């Protein structure tokens, strides 16, 4: 009897539970679905087609995006090719995984859900953030953390690899070439010593105390140079906290503009908790940042230079993602990011340095290569690809910033990669020194060494297009506020690639504070900067850049 009553009671409780929980058991319409949208589309895509669809990751041939379910029928109607990857993405953490070989996708299949996305890239999720410890160390991972502030654009993919046989040559050569002076101070001995020191921490795997100690070593080094430096802490996978080491050389004339040179100081290997020397990955990049800091600390620049050693890169780019998202949130005006990741191993001599950019950063790659040609003995290979996402430049791309990744080979050729054998004695320090010199020169060129003679201000441009029956020509009217003091004249420079490759117009300086540039091709947008010159031939840095027809100026 008692048993019957107990059974009745239990049955009633279960019935009540089922009754009250019934509404939540009904499948809910998800707020968003995760989709892969092909860039190449057969139809013309109007502005409203992609309304509500938010980018998560750009790759060469496609976008990974979040879309409201109701937008899918619109995409289908308008001929946009897409594929639903996950119908309930809420509370999931996705990783983009580059597998060493296509056959290795099967390894992932046993560990979680996998979608081959493009080439050797897969989308992977396993129900947690602890993917680094789940996957073999040779799998390169990037954590995707929701929508990014980049607008989705469709069209033919823009990719390419180019050895620049005839590289751009800077038009302006200094009387006193400060950059050459800086480059000459880069020391291979210092670089070697830094890599050796980093290697001595035995492992720098993020989450280990050794990693934090190596961070403190870098922090102390920066502070020892007299730089402002701090640790920016952030959480990783809800498991531990680690920090980016950030040093700053404040800009003298436009400190709100920032140039970043960076690398990651954490490492990994197949024995990551005890032994991950990471001499090449990325002791080499970190040592380069430290050496660049040592040299640049003795100079002043127009713009702020930030030297950053990121942590938790190997966990899925946590450190750089944290920094880039925060930078975007506080409206930091980052001109360009130079990220060095594995810059000391050579599988052949001479080795060329791969300079990887997405289409929006191609100008930065060209400018970097121009610096290489002027200041360093180094062959380069420019690689334009949005799919090269496995290093700390990628979160900056996600936030719409221009960024480069410098790497010895985009196709990994270092047999010691993520192994306990990634040691200093496997590296080519001559190559590492050349990369450091080139990166220092590019950073200094972007940040513009401070000069007493100041450039003109308030540069404006106005355009007029004249036309006849068969020809058109543009006239651009430039005006600026005259400089004061020992200014004897001005040099006007023009380019068709914003921020670089300025060519001086005319052989003589102009004395007035205006200039008219005539008979230009109206189909081309021209960009201008002006410098001030004094009686001794010294020249200021470039002024703000203006494009024809716009009043808005930008300082490069």
């Amino acid at each position, binding site marked *: 009897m008692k048993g019957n009553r107990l059974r009745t009671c239990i049955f009633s409780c279960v019935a009540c539970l089922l009754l009250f929980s019934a509404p939540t058991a009904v499948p809910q319409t998800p707020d968003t679905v995760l989709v892969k949208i092909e860039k190449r589309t057969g139809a013309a895509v109007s502005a409203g087609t992609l309304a509500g669809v938010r980018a998560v990751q750009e790759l060469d041939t496609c976008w990974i995006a979040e879309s409201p379910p109701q937008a899918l029928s619109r995409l289908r109607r308008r001929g946009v090719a897409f594929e639903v990857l996950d119908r309930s993405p809420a509370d999931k953490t996705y990783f983009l995984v580059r597998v060493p070989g296509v056959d290795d996708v099967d390894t992932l299949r046993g560990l979680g859900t996998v979608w081959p996305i493009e080439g050797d890239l897969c989308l992977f999720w396993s129900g947690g953030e602890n993917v680094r410890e789940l996957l073999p160390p040779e799998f390169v991972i990037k954590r995707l953390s929701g929508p990014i502030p980049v607008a989705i654009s469709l069209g033919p993919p823009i990719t390419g690899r180019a050895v620049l046989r005839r590289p751009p040559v800077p038009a302006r050569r200094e009387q006193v070439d400060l950059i050459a002076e800086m480059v000459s101070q880069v020391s291979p001995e210092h670089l070697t010593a830094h890599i050796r020191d980093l290697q001595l921490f035995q492992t720098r795997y993020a989450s280990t105390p050794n990693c934090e100690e190596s961070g403190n070593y870098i922090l102390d080094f920066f502070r020892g140079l007299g730089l402002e430096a701090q640790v920016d802490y952030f959480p990783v996978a809800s498991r531990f906290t680690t920090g980016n080491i950030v040093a700053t050389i404040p800009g003298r004339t436009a400190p709100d503009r920032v140039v970043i040179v960076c690398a990651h100081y954490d490492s990994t290997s197949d024995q990551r908790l005890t032994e991950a020397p990471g001499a090449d990955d990325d002791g080499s990049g970190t040592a380069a940042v430290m050496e660049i800091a040592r040299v640049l600390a003795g100079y002043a620049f127009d713009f702020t230079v930030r030297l950053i050693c990121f942590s938790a890169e190997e966990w899925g780019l946590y450190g750089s993602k944290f920094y880039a998202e925060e930078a975007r949130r506080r409206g930091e005006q980052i001109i360009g990011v130079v990220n060095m990741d594995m810059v000391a191993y050579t599988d052949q001599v001479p080795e060329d340095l791969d300079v990887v950019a997405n289409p929006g950063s191609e100008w930065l790659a060209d400018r970097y290569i121009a610096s290489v040609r002027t200041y360093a003995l180094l062959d380069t290979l420019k690689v334009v690809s949005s799919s090269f996402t496995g290093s700390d430049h990628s979160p900056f791309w996600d936030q719409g910033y221009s960024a480069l990744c410098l790497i010895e080979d985009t196709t990994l050729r270092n047999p010691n990669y993520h192994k306990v054998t990634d040691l200093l004695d496997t590296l080519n320090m001559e190559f590492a020194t050349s990369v450091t010199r080139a990166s220092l020169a590019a950073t200094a060129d972007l940040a513009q060494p401070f000069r007493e003679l100041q450039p003109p201000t308030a540069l404006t441009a106005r355009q*007029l*297009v*004249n036309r*006849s*029956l*068969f020809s058109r*020509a543009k*006239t651009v009217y430039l005006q600026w506020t005259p400089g004061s003091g020992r200014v004897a004249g001005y040099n006007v420079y023009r380019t068709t690639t914003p921020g670089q490759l300025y060519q001086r117009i005319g052989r003589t300086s102009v004395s007035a504070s205006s200039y008219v540039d*005539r*008979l230009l091709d109206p189909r081309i947008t021209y960009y201008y900067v002006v410098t001030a010159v004094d009686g001794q031939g010294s020249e200021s840095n470039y002024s703000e850049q203006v494009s024809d027809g716009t009043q808005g100026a930008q300082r490069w």
Partner: protein
Amino acid sequence: MTVALARTGLAGQPEKQSPRFDVSVLAGVLRPSDESFRALYGGSHVPIAVQLEYRLRPRLALFGGVQFVGADGRTVAEGAQTGDEDFPLRFTAYSIRAGALMLTAKRGWTVFAGGGANYSSYHEEWTGAPIAASGAAYGFVAQAGARHVLSGPITLSGAVEYTYAPADSDASPGGRIDLGGLGISLGVGIQF
């Protein structure tokens, strides 16, 4: 031979044959059809033409000729911009045309109307600047007019002419420019 001589003899006073050829030199006023042309070079120009006619039959003639038009102008600013400066222009065009005319003659007057093909070769340059464009346009010409014998072989001609000569142009909003127009011309000629 005998017969021929006899015929000549018969025609001791030979039959007066109407002339087969007419060569005229004409000048006049041309109003270009294209508004852009008028804006750049003005609304009226003075073409000079030489035209040769061959009377195939009493009421049908073939014609061929050359016309030259030269004009000076100034560039215009595009869109709503107001130009601070402009550039002087020089435009020249040679047109070669050929076609057929229907004729009717009465009391020393010949009235004609007809049409044919037109080929124009043009050159435009910005004077003093390294900008120039040359090209060709194919179209048609239609003309109507009258000719009066003044004295002996000398004639006075007047004609109205419409030419259509579209040329491709990247500078034109529509991508094409009509180099032709409506013209009135007056000239003198010789018949033989």
